[in-house]
């Protein structure tokens, strides 16, 4: 699939934003005072909203985006929109109250958390539902999205909550644990994706054309000699070697660097500021991971084009 920057940015940024929102909703410890509440809310909402806005760049008619809220009964994309907006709305009340009263309304917070998790889940389901892309079409896809989202959220909580202090060992262990679990899941996802080829799902040029019974079927001529929407959008190719290198980069920045930082912090009790560095590294790792998520994915349409 074509790795569109707007969509990569959307999933990573809003994933992190909603992860953080989920944590804030749970009422995790935060510094006191309206400023902290405001900054935390701004970062969480900002990440979520920037992500959502960026996704509209991908639309041909962003001015009609409101229509996307109508089909929640059948469409994951619609559900995602509804969840995101409802969650953000709830957080609006929750956050404003927090900023102004320095109190967090617990039941509203739980709703926000639930909404955030649901939003991330629906985002993931947009991809996971597609039978046309076997690599995505697995329960592991939402699990990965959720784990990354929560990891981001927890890291932000830690960086924020223990601002100017040294992060507690327990927080760091939780982050370490999440990083390991999330990336372990991603590694399993990759393995699964590598195995979930179109062929493994029983689709090949033979079934795509129904001619497989006669012999080996191979494309001789594309319908048109130039590119078209389908080839640009769905018949993207990354070389195997290239992909492996990028996976290492994703793991390096997304897992190894943050894990090292956490370990160093546990061993040397360093300033929590380093956690922000770890978070940025994780984000970068996730961008690479998400780029690969799209770029490596083979769509059934490619059976008609290569």
């Amino acid at each position, binding site marked *: 699939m074509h790795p569109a920057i707007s969509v990569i940015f959307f999933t990573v940024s809003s994933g992190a934003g909603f992860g953080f929102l989920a944590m804030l909703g749970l009422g995790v410890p935060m510094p006191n005072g309206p400023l902290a509440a405001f900054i935390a809310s701004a970062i969480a909402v900002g990440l979520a909203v920037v992500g959502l806005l960026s996704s509209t760049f991908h639309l*041909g008619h962003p001015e009609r985006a409101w229509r*996307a809220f109508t089909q929640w009964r059948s469409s994951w994309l619609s559900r995602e929109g509804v969840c995101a907006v409802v969650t953000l709305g709830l957080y609006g009340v929750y956050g404003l109250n927090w900023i102004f009263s320095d109190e967090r309304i617990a039941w509203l917070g739980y709703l926000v958390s639930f909404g955030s998790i649901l939003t991330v889940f629906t985002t993931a389901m947009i991809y996971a539902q*597609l039978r*046309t*892309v076997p690599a995505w079409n697995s329960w592991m896809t939402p699990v990965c999205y959720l784990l990354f989202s929560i990891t981001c959220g927890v890291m932000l909580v830690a960086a924020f909550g223990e601002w100017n202090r040294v992060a507690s060992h327990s927080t760091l262990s939780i982050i370490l644990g999440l990083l390991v679990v999330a990336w372990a899941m991603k590694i399993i996802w990759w393995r699964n994706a590598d195995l979930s080829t179109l062929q493994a799902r029983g689709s090949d040029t033979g079934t*795509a054309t129904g001619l497989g019974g006669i012999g080996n079927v191979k494309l*001789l001529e594309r319908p048109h000699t*130039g590119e078209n929407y389908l080839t640009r959008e*769905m018949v993207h190719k990354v070389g195997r070697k290239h992909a492996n290198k990028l996976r290492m980069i994703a793991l390096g920045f997304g897992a190894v660097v943050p894990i090292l930082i956490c370990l160093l912090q546990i061993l040397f009790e360093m300033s929590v500021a380093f956690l922000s560095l770890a978070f940025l590294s994780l984000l970068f790792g996730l961008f690479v991971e998400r780029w690969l998520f799209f770029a490596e994915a083979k769509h059934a*349409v490619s059976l008609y084009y290569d």
Partner: protein
Amino acid sequence: MTTLPNSTDKKLGLVIDLDVCVGCHACVVNCKEWNTGGYGAPLADEDAYGSAPSGAWLNRIHTFEITPEDAPASIVHFPKSCLHCEDAPCVTVCPTGASYKRTDDGIVLVDEDKCIGCGLCAWACPYGAREMDPVENVMKKCTLCVDRIYNENIPEVDRVPACVRTCPAEARHFGDFSDPNSDVSRMVADRGGFDLMPEQNTKPVNKYLPPRPKSHPSDPSPSISKSDAINAKGFLGWVDRALEKL
């Protein structure tokens, strides 16, 4: 409404006969010219006279080469447009309700005024039957010529899809698959019509007819039933006798 109807009154669609399609692209271009001034936005062409021309089309012909184990390779020209699936994933993924399947006849359509151009329906379609218009940025797809097949402004004989009317090899047939006695249903039954990628569970309405088996160069030769006694006196001897009979 992007939920699918439980059932449709009719199941209109196409049968495409791979045994006679010569890959001439007539249906492709006729579809384009009919639709570009018709249903919804025009089918635009980007960089039309430039170095990378590319446009929106609703029907395309691919060419496949088939290499059997023990026979010479052959070629199949393969037309492909929307199959108007019964379980159309392109419809259910649509967030806006722009994509829908008609209850009356099962045609899958896009209401372009509602379409936000998110492209998700194209991702959901396994067949590559949806293309985003490069200029208007709305999703385009085969309409089964819904603006022809019921159109009272054109003669009744012409109320068939443009691609069907124009196909010089008569490789495309239009009809109602819900009626087991329709021409299309019969053709499918007689010739072993099949679905594309049944494993995708989309239940396509359109069906394809397979190429008939080909002769092999070394198929045995039923030796010519020789005209009587040609061997006895050679060819000219036979001529003599044959002439006597004239």
